[in-house]
């Protein structure tokens, strides 16, 4: 019986190694920019969700001056438009396929907004790369938002009380006390999200971003060999993701050295 892998095909695939090399650069850059955009977006979204901006807060007390705990007016007094928007964003992006999001961003949004057509390093087409980064960034922002929010909420409330009692403002408390502890707590989850993005970025080959998967397609088109280039891609993805998660686990151990002695 023939094996579905033919060793003799590999030398043919290896001729296209430079394509894979370019694919690796694209995938890595794509993931880095995605995490960057996603993280900034997620931080803003998380702070929106945790904010206490209630335009109808004046309704929270009833005619006797007691704080309401139920009823229609109670719900209105609790309404926070920023938290509502952020929650809606997160739920919509988490409940729809990333492929659909990529298509809508590429054909929809950037069908209207024309991007300049230039290439970076001679093989990264900006007009395809940029929409890919935006779409993936918007998507991972929704997931990272929930991670960051849980991280902030995991910090003991006494920390905020101590900071505020020392006269620190809410912003200082967030910056110097809460976020450093929260980020440390959620580092494994962020690392996991980064690895997910490396893998998920493969979806952008559908809009012509020349990442690792697009190299597979190119080899397939030129040689009609399918399985072997896929195996090469598999190996490359593994070599990207596995060390990344190991590296971050190492950093995490180093960072927690301070509180475990």
């Amino acid at each position, binding site marked *: 019986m023939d094996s579905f892998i033919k060793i003799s095909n590999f030398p043919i695939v290896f001729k296209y190694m430079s394509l894979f090399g370019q694919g690796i650069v694209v995938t890595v850059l794509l993931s880095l920019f995605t995490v960057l955009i996603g993280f900034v977006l997620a931080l803003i979204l998380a702070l929106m969700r945790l904010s206490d901006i209630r335009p109808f807060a004046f309704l929270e007390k*009833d005619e*006797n*001056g*007691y*704080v*309401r*705990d139920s009823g229609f007016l109670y719900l209105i007094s609790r309404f926070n438009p920023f938290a509502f928007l952020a929650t809606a964003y997160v739920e919509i992006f988490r409940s729809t396929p990333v492929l659909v999001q990529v298509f809508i961003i590429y054909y929809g949004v950037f069908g209207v907004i024309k991007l300049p057509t230039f290439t970076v390093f001679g093989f990264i087409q900006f007009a395809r790369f940029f929409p890919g980064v935006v779409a993936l960034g918007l998507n991972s922002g929704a997931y990272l938002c929930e991670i960051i929010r849980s991280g902030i909420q995991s910090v*003991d409330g*006494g*920390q905020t*009380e*101590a*900071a*505020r*009692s*020392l*006269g*620190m*403002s809410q912003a*200082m408390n967030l910056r*110097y*006390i809460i976020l*450093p*502890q929260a980020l*440390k707590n959620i580092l494994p989850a962020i690392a996991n999200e980064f690895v997910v993005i490396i893998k998920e970025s493969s979806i952008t080959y559908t809009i012509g971003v020349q990442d690792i998967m697009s190299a597979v397609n190119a080899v397939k088109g030129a040689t009609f060999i399918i399985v072997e280039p896929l195996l090469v891609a598999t190996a490359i993805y593994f070599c990207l993701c596995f060390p990344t998660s190991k590296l971050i686990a190492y950093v995490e151990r180093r960072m927690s050295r*301070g*509180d*475990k*002695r």
Partner: protein
Amino acid sequence: METRDDVLIRVRNLKKYYNRGTIKALDDVNIDIRKGDVMVVIGPSGSGKSTFLRSLNLLELPTAGSIEFDGEDITQKKVLNKDGKMVKMDLDAHRQKMGMVFQHFNLFPHLTILNNMTLAPIKVKHMDQKLAEEKALKLLDRVGLKDRANAYPIQLSGGQKQRVAIVRALAMEPEVMLFDEPTSALDPEMVGEVLEVMKELAREGMTMVCVTHEMGFAREVGNRLVFMAEGKILEQGEPKEMFANPQTERLKEFFSQVL
């Protein structure tokens, strides 16, 4: 309104209600805290003494009533300033002058002891870093922890943590120190070292409000004793006198349980 210069915190009709007034954590509390007072607040658990203390720097928002600190009602969003203009009440500025020590220390675990102490002076008061560190080391020296300046909170014992928490608050040079059951989370053998620091503070004339279960401290160190139950101040006065002659049945009962 009469103004007595030595009143630092004037609490009037302070109320804290939950569940539409069915639970009254604070029920019309009135008290003046004067400069140099060492006020000890005692009472059974659930009597509202912690809520009272935490209301003083608005960690707990009262339902009604006023808290005047340095002549400003800090429960208001806007206050009249000295020029007679309505300005935004700067709660953070007031909190700088009210040091607080918590039952569970609440040291910042990601910062060294020294950085725990210098963060607020540097960021809030814009103190020069060198100066802040010098001051912090001096304070640490006073409580015998100078050699632990570069340690992290996790490396300290409970008593050491609480001593650091006290000097961290002192580094802001507050006008009053609020202690919220500072020894309740400590192993018994560590209670003494923390009380010793508090005693010394009292001797130096620091204005202090302490919620505590340490009756010895209440009797020996405090110059005012306040007994709270069910959200009310039931009795207050000179500590030794109150220990000798409790007036209310409730206080007699409380003493019989704790002494």
